[in-house]
């Protein structure tokens, strides 16, 4: 330790000296204002993110995608089957507010950068551990925002599974936030109340430059500029989430446009991408439903069953939604035909065996009369892109669980 001599009163030249940081905009008040915005916004993003994990119902083996549920896998309750806009709302908020907060996060980091170079670097064990937890906070925030922002724009620069990385990364961030907020809350309140002139008289502050450069921008203009960027991004998120005539608002995101016609609404995977042969969904296509007994249907036989029509959203984890009018057979009717009477879950298996090639719906979804094995949409036979010959549609479940090109459905009765 003696080798590294640290004189607390004589920082090395460069960023470790307070005079190095000259922006007149940095101040405890600016940091506190940005902190307050994040204190309100980040919990919304975190809670809706955790709800999304719940909506995926990872407690079912098919939905867990190789995850073994550990201490951080909060799985509080079965996912409700209504109101039908539930997941469109929670996930729309998650992505939209996340996009809109990123400029605030960057500005907040800019505002506190002198603290990274504070001198001496470590004052006490408490200070050391606090700085470590701050590294987790900054790393967690940037990791979450960057992976999320890249993922909703299909830029898979990262060579890892997004869901798992983003989910556990969120916990690093949430954990560090829980430590940071109580430690800094009083500072934030004090900074919001204190005028900078007072600070200057009482001996300055580590965020106030001792020799500020001439001001070119007022704090109000800076906040206006950041707020403006947030508003533009908010509009992007609202556009792709609300859909309809508002979709055009998302002019800088991939989901700002749809294809023309009644079947032009968005999909997350095209038929071409599956690599399946047309024969797979030709006259030889059959649906096998397994419960207490197995029953096989042709598409004509499914069409002969009682048909029901519901207006339901497809809400994607990427934050876009689209509400359409679906017609098909009630999944609970199929359960009855397979001899299943009580509460049951259903695993739907697609002809396409990729990630999400099969997904399980909970008993809340199976018993809901609006959960359909859809055969047509908006009065037209399903197109191949929309899952012809048959696909699952159910209120409140993530879009990727609305299995397309269904070939098998397995009902599993819950032991009561």
């Amino acid at each position: 330790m003696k080798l590294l001599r640290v004189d607390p009163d004589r920082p090395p030249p460069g960023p470790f000296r307070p005079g190095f940081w000259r922006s007149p905009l940095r101040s405890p008040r600016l940091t506190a204002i940005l902190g307050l915005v994040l204190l309100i916004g980040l919990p919304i993003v975190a809670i809706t993110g955790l709800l999304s994990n719940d909506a995926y119902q990872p407690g079912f083996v098919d939905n867990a995608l190789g995850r073994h549920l550990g201490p951080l896998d909060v799985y509080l309750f079965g996912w409700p089957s209504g109101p039908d806009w539930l997941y469109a709302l929670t996930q729309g908020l998650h992505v939209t507010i996340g996009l809109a907060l990123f400029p605030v996060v960057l500005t907040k980091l800019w505002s506190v950068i002198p603290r990274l170079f504070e001198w001496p670097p470590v004052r006490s064990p408490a200070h050391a551990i606090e700085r470590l937890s701050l590294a987790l906070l900054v790393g967690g925030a940037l990791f979450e925002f960057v992976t999320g922002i890249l993922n909703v724009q299909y830029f898979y620069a990262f060579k890892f599974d997004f869901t798992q990385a983003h989910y556990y990364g969120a916990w690093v961030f949430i954990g560090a936030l829980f430590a940071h907020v109580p430690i800094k809350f009083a500072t934030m309140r004090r900074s919001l109340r204190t005028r900078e002139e007072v600070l200057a008289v009482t001996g300055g502050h580590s965020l106030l430059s001792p020799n500020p450069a001439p001001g070119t921008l007022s704090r109000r203009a800076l906040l206006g500029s950041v707020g403006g960027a947030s508003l533009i991004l908010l509009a992007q998120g609202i556009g792709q989430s609300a859909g309809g005539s508002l979709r055009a608002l998302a002019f800088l995101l991939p989901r700002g446009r749809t294809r023309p016609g009644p079947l032009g609404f968005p999909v997350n995977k095209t038929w071409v991408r599956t690599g399946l042969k047309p024969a797979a969904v030709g006259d030889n296509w059959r649906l096998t439903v397994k419960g207490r007994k197995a029953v096989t249907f042709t598409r004509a036989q499914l069409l002969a069953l009682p048909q029901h029509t519901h207006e339901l959203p497809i809400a994607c984890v990427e934050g876009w939604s689209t509400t359409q009018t679906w017609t098909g057979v009630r999944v609970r009717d199929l359960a009855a035909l397979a001899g299943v009477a009580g509460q049951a879950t259903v695993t739907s298996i697609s002809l396409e065996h990729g990630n999400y090639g099969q997904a399980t719906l909970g008993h809340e979804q199976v018993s809901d009369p609006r959960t359909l094995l859809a055969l047509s949409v908006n009065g037209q036979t399903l197109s191949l892109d929309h899952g012809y010959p048959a696909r699952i549609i159910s209120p409140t479940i993530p879009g990727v669980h609305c299995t397309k090109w269904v070939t098998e459905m397995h009902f599993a009765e819950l032991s009561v």
Partner: protein
Amino acid sequence: MNRLSTVVARLRARYGGGPAHLLASLASIAIAGAAVLGWTQRPRDLTNVLIWFGAAIVLHDVVLLPVYSLLDRCTLGRLPISVAAYVRVPALTSALVLAVVFPTVFGFGAHQEHNASGIVEHGYLARWLLLTGALFALSGLAYAIQGRRR
């Protein structure tokens, strides 16, 4: 009670903070440890995830921030004070928007997007430039109005 306060006082002297500080900090580190355990469920992903996480801690603070600060100092920082704000505000807004939508604007995800949605869409760069132009035009208008008042 007396003994407890002695312990707390000793903690403050040695550790430099109260028990709540110690517990909150330790909890956050323990949760991070559990998250790393979660990541180990995909051993092949683990190294990449940790690299990205490490980069998230380091890259912004020691690379991006200095680079954009220098860039600002060499360009906008040289503007006369009378116009600086009117250039800085639209430039900053536009740059912050780009920080979020750059993959779409530069078409980095276009191939995957086509696979997913069946839509090939061009012209995002032009839209962002148009947005930037509109922001500068608004700012120019504000400058003109301000100038007339003076």
